């Protein structure tokens, strides 16, 4: 079984602030990391692979990301966490892509890889849209299952999953090939093994450009994106209000009268 995981490299901290005085973005600590949700996606892919291998089946995990050349670092980290190999999609033509153009480029790359299962995180912590996973499925014409919290069963033709939705869990059987997005509840990711780290160091990571995935430029990057960012600004600043100290009894009294004032009681 061929398994692919789509990951995104995101800033390691979300401490991105906007300075209204100078009208500038201030990033504290510009280190990067694998998007946290994608780590769960990767872990689940590796677990599926290990289970299949135990049953004597062949299985591989390939990680895919689209980004600048330095995103290669995220791919190496993914290999240290159990992926077998990786592909970096990097081309000037991909730049400025919104979710439509991003999912298109990833889907074109996946077309070459022909996976049975594709795992993504439910969303990225910087963009926060949750749109790319379902988008990839539509571009590829794969079945899909979003917000997966548990894999209940898997055979050559279908996968049974538990989806976390507002009212509870939906249990669905979905025909392969399938794109899944996972929530945090699905597993507890491992830390890199020594062997994983060695593999990550040695791995040769191919870089695919627009021509390699047979993607016409008019569907890529800013050019292929239906949406345009026209303004970036700082949200209204929130300031801390009054603070009380005292005995628990006093504070509880104060709180109760406050809740009365706020008309919640």
């Amino acid at each position, binding site marked *: 079984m061929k398994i692919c995981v789509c990951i995104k490299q995101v800033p390691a901290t979300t401490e991105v602030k906007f300075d209204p005085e100078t009208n500038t973005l201030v990033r504290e600590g510009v280190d990067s990391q694998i998007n946290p949700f994608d780590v769960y996606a990767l872990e689940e892919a590796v677990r599926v692979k290990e289970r299949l291998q135990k049953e004597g089946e062949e299985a591989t995990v390939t990680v895919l990301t689209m980004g600048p050349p330095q995103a290669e670092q995220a791919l190496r980290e993914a290999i240290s966490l159990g992926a077998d190999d990786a592909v970096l999609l990097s081309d000037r033509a991909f*730049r400025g892509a919104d979710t439509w153009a991003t999912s298109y480029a990833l889907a074109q790359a996946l077309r070459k890889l022909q996976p049975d299962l594709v795992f993504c995180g439910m969303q990225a912590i910087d963009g926060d849209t949750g749109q790319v996973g379902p988008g990839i499925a539509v571009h590829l014409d794969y079945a899909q299952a979003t917000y997966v919290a548990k894999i209940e069963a898997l055979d050559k033709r279908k996968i049974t999953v538990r989806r*976390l939705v507002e009212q509870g869990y*939906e249990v669905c059987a979905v025909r392969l090939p399938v794109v899944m997005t996972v929530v945090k509840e699905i597993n507890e990711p491992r830390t890199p093994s020594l062997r994983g780290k060695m593999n990550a160091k040695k791995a040769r990571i191919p870089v695919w450009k627009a021509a390699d995935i047979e993607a016409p430029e008019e569907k890529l990057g800013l050019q292929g994106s239906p949406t345009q960012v026209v303004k970036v600004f700082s949200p209204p600043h929130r300031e801390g209000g009054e603070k009380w100290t005292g005995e628990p009894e006093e504070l509880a009294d104060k709180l109760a009268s406050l809740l009365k004032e706020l008309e919640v009681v």
Partner: protein
Amino acid sequence: MAIRVIEEKCNGCGLCTKNCPQMAIAVDNKKAIIDLEVCNYCGACAAACRFRAITIEVDKQAQEDLSQYRGVWVFGEQFRGKVAPVVLELVGAGRKLADARNTELAVVVLGSDLSAAARELSEYPVDKVYLYEAPELAHYDGERYSRVLGDLVRALKPEILLAGATTTGRSFMSQVAIKLYTGLTADCTGLEIGDDGLLYQTRPAYGGNIMATILCPYTRPQMATVRHKVFPLPPKRTNGKAPEVVHLNVKPQLHSSRSELLDFIEQVETTVNIVEADIIVSGGRGIQDPANFALIEALAKALGGAVGASRAAVDAGWIPYAHQVGQTGKTVCPKLYIACGISGAVQHLAGMSSSDTIIAINKDPDAPIFQVANFGFVGDCLEIVPLLTRKIEALRGRA
């Protein structure tokens, strides 16, 4: 696609260099110079420039006559025939957009046996309710739903399509937008019609640290998902005519799916869904022990609210993940958020700092949560919360 510095307008102030996440801009001889090898066309520089000296040109135009698209649609998400609360909030927002565009507001509902949903929607200021009823559509199925809605949009051509940013709305709208090759903006907190007639969609990014306004200029419909509780419930219709209820032709050929719903496990303890709650009482590391979550639950119950949690409490296994508020959990925007024993890491703040009122109870007077709380109480939540619960119960008892 080209990015360009207009030399006559640039005075070399350097705002663009500071804003560029790629560090692709330098100022030389009082002019900005963009390194095209490094630039990723994110637009941060153009948005930051006070002199409109940086332009990003996209060689693009509409492929069809956009004026044939008219009307605002709201996706009427339903669960077991009952309309999701966020749909009614969207009716309020959609009404304003439809009025600004001098056009109709319609709610489109997919499902089976939708008469109750239609009745409920008829009480609100809606012009049309479109119903598409088929047994296979009783429960949400991404493939069926996106094929049906895609087909309806192609036939009826709405100009704007809104949906709640629920788990269903987010997955479903993405599929529809990809099929229609149009733009979709997730989790909008602001929607406005500009002087140019376009829908200006504003949303937070980077965990709410930055707001971005987004347009979809060349394709239709302009699609957006909107978070719970961002827009108020609209008043019910007091006069004017009741909406026209339109039963749409069912096309069974659109109903095939590769997915089959086997079971639905309802979560009893999440009867009050945190994203829909007006009041949330949240517990964090300061709760110290899973048994103490009962104190949080009791307060939430006394206030008629829902129980939230910080990542620390969820990771410790004290409460299920569905309750987690924050960057890797849910984003909530209740009228009142009471944070008990939560220090207020940026990841948590990202999920709750747009609440109307925040009350924080924490032992540490320097906890960052106090920087966003309207009212701060420095003390041990394990002592204060039960006392408060008793006082509220007493107040309620008297009333």
